[in-house]
């Protein structure tokens, strides 16, 4: 049984009815017809709901526990991969993973968050919140990509960097700042995909793509709606309002000219069809990779710097 979100209640109701009918183990035509009616109703309702998700509903969808995770993305998009570990300084942070990967003969270096898929891995990975050693592993991989001229693919899905004493003690700020700096200096192109939650500085540290692409129902925000609500409204009960005000949906970010493109998700969201979602990401990746094939490292770095310096230009006076 799928995990339904609160606003998917009508779907859950239809599904429950279908389960009941199936439970009867009655093969009569009546039941079969009723089941197919219900299925039709379900599909219609599903596409209705997902056509008009509110920002706060998108926040819930992008955090859905069944959304594609790093290992799914790597295994379904790439033909071959070799995972790499550790920051060579302190530890291996498994909330931020990296690997060498191939599609056919095309080689990539892939870096991404991993929120984990069950209780144990979620706890181990701090729910996708990286510590300094995670960002420092990313920096090490940025350098490898730069040296061996491998295009970098980043998959972003994090609530943000981990807020904890040890993370602070080991320089969370420095780790994020240096990740931003080093990724901007990488000599090969970077393609960033926000596949779930693009949370604050932790997302920026991995998000310095020459192209930044978001899945249709993903978000990218300076602060979580809950965090914003508790600061500005002094209560997380106002999270929905905060989500609306923050303009954090993929559609908002495209309007604001912060991202380059949106990948439409399968009906009912990426979590309902991980395979199709991965195919769509793969198509996009293969297409955008070609755009950078004939650029020199200097042109690639300049392209990236210019892209970020120009963000917000449309809001400047004169």
């Amino acid at each position: 049984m799928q995990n339904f979100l609160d606003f998917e209640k009508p779907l859950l109701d239809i599904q429950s009815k279908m389960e009941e009918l199936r439970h009867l183990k009655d093969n009569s035509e009546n039941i079969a017809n009723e089941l197919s009616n219900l299925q039709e109703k379900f599909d219609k309702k599903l596409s209705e709901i997902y056509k008009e998700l509110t920002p706060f509903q998108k926040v819930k969808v992008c955090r859905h526990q069944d959304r594609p995770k790093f290992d799914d993305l790597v295994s379904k998009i790439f033909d071959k991969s070799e995972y790499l570990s550790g920051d060579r300084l302190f530890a291996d942070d498994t909330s931020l993973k990296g690997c060498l990967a191939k599609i056919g003969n095309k080689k990539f270096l892939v870096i991404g968050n991993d929120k984990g898929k069950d209780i144990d891995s979620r706890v181990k990975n701090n729910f996708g919140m990286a510590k300094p050693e995670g960002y420092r592993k990313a920096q090490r991989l940025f350098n490898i990509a730069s040296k061996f001229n491998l295009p970098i693919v980043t998959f972003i899905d994090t609530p943000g960097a981990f807020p904890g004493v040890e993370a602070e003690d080991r320089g969370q700020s420095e780790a994020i700042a240096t990740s931003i700096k080093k990724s901007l200096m990488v000599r090969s192109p970077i393609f960033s995909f926000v596949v779930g939650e693009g949370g604050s500085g932790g997302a920026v540290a991995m998000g310095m793509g020459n192209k930044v692409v978001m899945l249709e129902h993903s978000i990218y925000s300076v602060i979580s709606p809950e965090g914003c609500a508790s600061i500005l409204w002094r209560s997380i009960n106002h999270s929905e309002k905060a989500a609306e005000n923050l303009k954090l949906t993929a559609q908002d970010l495209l309007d604001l000219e912060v991202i380059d493109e949106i990948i439409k998700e399968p009906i009912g969201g990426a979590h309902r069809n991980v395979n199709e979602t991965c195919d769509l990401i793969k198509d996009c990746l293969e297409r955008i990779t070609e755009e950078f094939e004939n650029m020199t490292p200097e042109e690639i770095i300049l392209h990236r710097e210019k892209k970020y310096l120009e963000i917000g230009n449309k809001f400047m006076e004169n």
Partner: protein
Amino acid sequence: MNWITNFVRPKLQAFVGKKEVPDNLWETCPKCSQMLLKRELENNSFVCKHCDHHFRISAKQRLSFFLGNNFMVMDTPKVKADPLKFKDNKKYSDRLKEAQKKNSTYDSVIVASGTIEKKKVTVAIFDFNFMGGSMGMAAGEAIVTACNYARNNNLPLIIFSSSGGARMQEGILSLMQMPRTVIAVNSLSKTNLPFISVLTDPTTGGVSASFAMLGDIIIAEKDATIGFAGSRVIEETIKEKLPQNFQKSEYLIEKGMIDIVVHRKELNKKISDIIEFLT
């Protein structure tokens, strides 16, 4: 090839004159609770004479402490106010107007050039009084302006940070000031111009996690709070009491995160010495 296109020619701007502080105003030290005569406090660089507590000061006060009377404040690019039409209990555009009125500054960062112990420098200063020193588009532009000016005029760059982080009301556009300011300060690393980052109370969030931690030399003013996450958020996450002195300058230097902790009264001399070593 060069990405500086919107370089703004610095203009001499009249600087708001110092108001005389009446003799009878008192301030309570938040650290030792002693009563301090405001005029005395000001003459002591806003440092408590009893416990050495460093009071937060405005960007203008910082500017005059640092460059005396001989500086020029630069015009920085103007942003269309409130790009997201953000409204909590109040409209962001109203909050912004109030802050501008209260502080008589355009936004949270002042950029100036002047002389410190005979050395010409470019300086950018955050003002915590201006919406918590938060970094939105205008502040980001100010940092870019300061870096461009330093580079074009071959001057050392000093940035005094004092900020709670990114300005939430500008959403993703404020978050994007992290890479923008990193690109700006990084452009100095292709030259031999020093970038001295001075962290003052408080420097956190998107400011500490971007350009502020990338100084060639990082100085923290005594007693400042410096970190990525706020202590309340950390406490709620780990549900434990925080170590003593956590995220204070004196704690950070033990962790190896900064170069020097400096008393406010010795800051000018120290910065001047470092410039001397590096240029």
